[in-house]
């Protein structure tokens, strides 16, 4: 029992370290895929970490008149991502922290991170910060119903909203993955992942035109190590969202027993899953332009419809 628990604890540590260390590499991979598809060479897989190292050495600047919210927000956002990385079953379902946060608590923690940065954007007193902040909360507020209703569809068949039970159930009964309810929920959640991670067509992560930005406008005033934390946090957000989607709809390979072999397999499978999903997302973005801000609610309303359809089909077609 003791060795089992210690392996489970090790699993959590590995999971957190993997997400922290791997998230910037995931961002690099996605940029690289995009660059190659556009006929560019790309900066390589190490570039985000090199950027972070450079930012850490630079001077952090706080705007005149800002409060502790501005300086604390990056740490709070990053901390909620670390908490999700510790509680969610990314490489193992045996995590002792699984009961701390179920699907709904994880959704709320994602929201905490957005809100921390949204408040920081307002705190700057700059028009851009306010604009980004306002758009962030608009997208977050409209994505929330889809997240919860799609989560409803997923938890109905399992009778639980704990992520580990959801993943284990998916492994035990692979047939349910192909059920209409799950497929509809997968579509709904994919749209929300795109919106929450700030990818095209909702937000352009590489834009530098202020009026079109959401995330980048919110964090416009950050510099130095504060910016490094924000960047690491948003990379982790992307990794966490892709990881959650991957493990909920493709649950295979996640370790259900605590042991060195299962953990190692879990790490490899998780890395492959997230890398493939990231590459697919990046490749699809090449063919897309950013939408007008006021078409985004239509997209999210569409995803909500998919979520409701998923719940109804889980009831009527079960």
């Amino acid at each position: 029992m003791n060795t089992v628990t210690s392996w489970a604890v090790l699993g959590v540590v590995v999971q957190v370290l993997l997400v922290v260390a791997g998230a910037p590499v995931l961002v690099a991979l996605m940029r690289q895929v995009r660059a190659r598809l556009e006929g560019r060479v790309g900066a390589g897989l190490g570039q985000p970490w090199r950027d972070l190292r450079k930012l850490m050495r630079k001077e952090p600047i706080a705007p005149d008149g800002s409060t502790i919210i501005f300086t604390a927000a990056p740490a709070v956002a990053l901390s909620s991502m670390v908490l999700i990385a510790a509680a969610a079953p990314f490489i193992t379902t045996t995590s002792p922290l699984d009961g701390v946060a179920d699907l709904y608590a994880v959704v709320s923690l994602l929201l905490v991170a957005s809100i921390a940065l949204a408040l920081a954007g307002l705190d700057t007193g700059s028009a851009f910060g306010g604009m980004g902040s306002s758009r962030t909360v608009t997208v977050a507020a409209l994505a929330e119903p889809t997240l919860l209703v799609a989560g409803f569809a997923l938890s109905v068949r399992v009778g639980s909203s704990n992520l580990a039970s959801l993943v284990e159930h998916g492994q035990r009964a692979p047939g349910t993955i192909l059920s209409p309810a799950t497929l509809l929920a997968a579509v709904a959640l994919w749209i929300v992942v795109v919106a929450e991670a700030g990818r095209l067509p909702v937000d352009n992560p590489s834009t530098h035109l202020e009026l079109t930005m959401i995330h980048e406008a919110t964090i416009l005033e950050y510099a130095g190590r504060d910016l490094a934390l924000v960047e690491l946090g948003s990379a982790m957000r992307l990794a966490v969202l892709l990881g959650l989607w991957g493990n909920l709809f493709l649950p295979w390979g996640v370790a259900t027993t605590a042991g060195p072999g299962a953990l190692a397999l879990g790490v490899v499978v998780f890395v492959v899953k997230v890398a493939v999903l990231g590459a697919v997302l990046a490749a699809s973005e090449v063919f897309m332009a950013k939408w007008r801000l006021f078409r985004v609610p239509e997209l999210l309303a569409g995803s909500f419809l998919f979520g409701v359809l998923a719940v109804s089909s889980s009831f009527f077609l079960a």
Partner: protein
Amino acid sequence: MSLIESGLLLVAGAAALACVGTPLSSRASQASRTMLSGALTCLVGLGGVLAGVGALAGDSWSVTVPRLLPLSQAVLAIDPLSGLFMTLVGAVAIATGIYSTGYPHSHDHDHDHNHNHDQTPDAAGGIGSRTVQAALPLFAAAMVAVPAAGNVTTFLVLWELMALASLVLVLAEHRARPEVGQAGVWYAAMTHAGLVAILLGLVVFANAAGTETFAGMRTASVGLSPATRSLVFLLVFAGFGSKAGLVPLHVWLPRAHPEAPSYVSALMSAAMVNLGLYGVLRVGFDLLGGGPRWWWILVLAVGALSALYGVLQAGAATDLKRLLAYSTTENLGLIFIGVGAAGMFAAAGDAPLASLLMIAAVLHTVNHAAFKTLLFLGAGAVLRSTGLRDLDKMGGLAHRMPTTAVLFGLGALGASGLPPGNGFVSEWLLLQGLIHSLSGAGAPDVAVAIAMPLAVGAVALTAGLGVAMFVKAFGVGFLARPRSAEAAVATEVPRSMRAGMALAAVSCGILALAPLALVRSLERVLVTMPSIGDERPVHGAVELQLSGITGSMSPVLIALGLTGGALLIAVLVRRWGGQPRRTALVWGCGGTRLSPRMQYTATAYAEPLTRVFDDVLRPEHDINITHHVESRYLVESVTYRQRVSDRIENRLYPPLLAAALWWAAMARRLQNGSVHRYLAYGLVGLLVVLIAVGVTS
């Protein structure tokens, strides 16, 4: 003497002293009378908490005083359900009592700034007048006593006392601002329309039951015909729903709450509206013992509508207290979603799920009381120190009023339903209850399968928009730079006001971190509702675990993880990243220094959401462009005004008001002032009565 008796004695003593002592103390200075009024309110609150805690611990107590009320007797009967609401009201009264002692002082304190709300010299006389000071403890005492009532007459007398005392308090500042009078009229009309509905419902019930004591009605209700039971329920639901601020009877809330003094708003919004819920629980679940499913589907639908409409209006509001008032409609909507769903499953015989949903609803009531007290007191602190309610003119208050800002921030965290706030725990429980409705024991039917996803969607959209609303309220109000001269010269409020807010903040913190401590006593409340039973739906120590449902969540560990993680990250990063932080001007696009007027305002902040929900909110835009005298192509100035009016009110109420006015005009025709005609009316009336008696006998 038991805890309940000593508590009630304290309430009665303090209320009597308020009625007698405050009006007599005309010689005493206004400051000492304010102290007295606040202290008596605290004592009433303390009594309420004592009696309530005694009842929640499992004691029950009742007393009958014959001949105290005409044609009836006064009956008080206290059970755990009364105890819960007495504790709740008492706790809110303690915090507001402490706070109210500092409220008028801070106004004197910066009298030299020209505030638009106290331009007349006797404006402070509104709050400081003896009537208002006597009404405050009386209002608190009436609210504490309402749940203790044990028969219909006592209940209605106390209910009316509560309504009248609160009306006096709402009208406190009517000399200073004409809108107060308008708000008072709306409030008086709505609360009395509600009283009529409750009165009719309870009279029909008591008549059919043959007794008017709650104990007798409880046993007799089984024998009533379904039609009578439904009529009673619909009438009392309309009456209590208007007190609870449910759509479409919410119209008094966004008027009365902003115009009342802020500690009165806190008492009304955090304590009084909950008594509407108490009424529905008492009559629906206790006296009628549950009912058919369509009652509860109606409650659920009204709850969902209120939650969504409330949060949308709050999201678009720029008046801070109006925003909080609509947020009350929203939260009561969420609570009634839980109550309605609990009733649905109780009617279907699924007691575990019903009890989980009821616990969620009741816990959310407690949480709402805690954070709404804090938020209204915080809004009052801002109003007292800047004279502002308009968020568009605030900003930068975190520097000038740091304690208020931190406390308001804690309240906003709780209200937004984000971890680690207290609202998160009850919203999580509510969602768990709704979500497991389809996977619970027994095959769910079509009504459940349609209602539950929509309810989850409504709760989720409400939660999402609620977050946006409180980011707006806190971020625009307290962060960044001041948007007006008043906000720039704000000062921190006196210690007593901060103490009142801190007390509410501490309760929010306890509720957020240790909800299980409270859930134990809430389970005793369930026993009073026979259709729900005495399940123990929630258990665990550190993690909240649900019985029959494998869902768990740990509020303590999430809070620890978030704050501990953030601190650790901050410390580590400071150690590695060598350079100290520098303060610099915000980026002004390479040239100009940004003026505070270039910041996002509350209107601008809510604009995307207002536009998305254009069809519901229908904002009125007003753009005035002044052109330069020499060319139409040069613009001198642009003024933009946006007003979001209450559409439900605009659609529903004008025909009603027109009908009432028409009725009044008809009545006026009868009443032309001629004494002869009045004598003729008397004669005709007497003849009609005599003939009627003659014919019927």
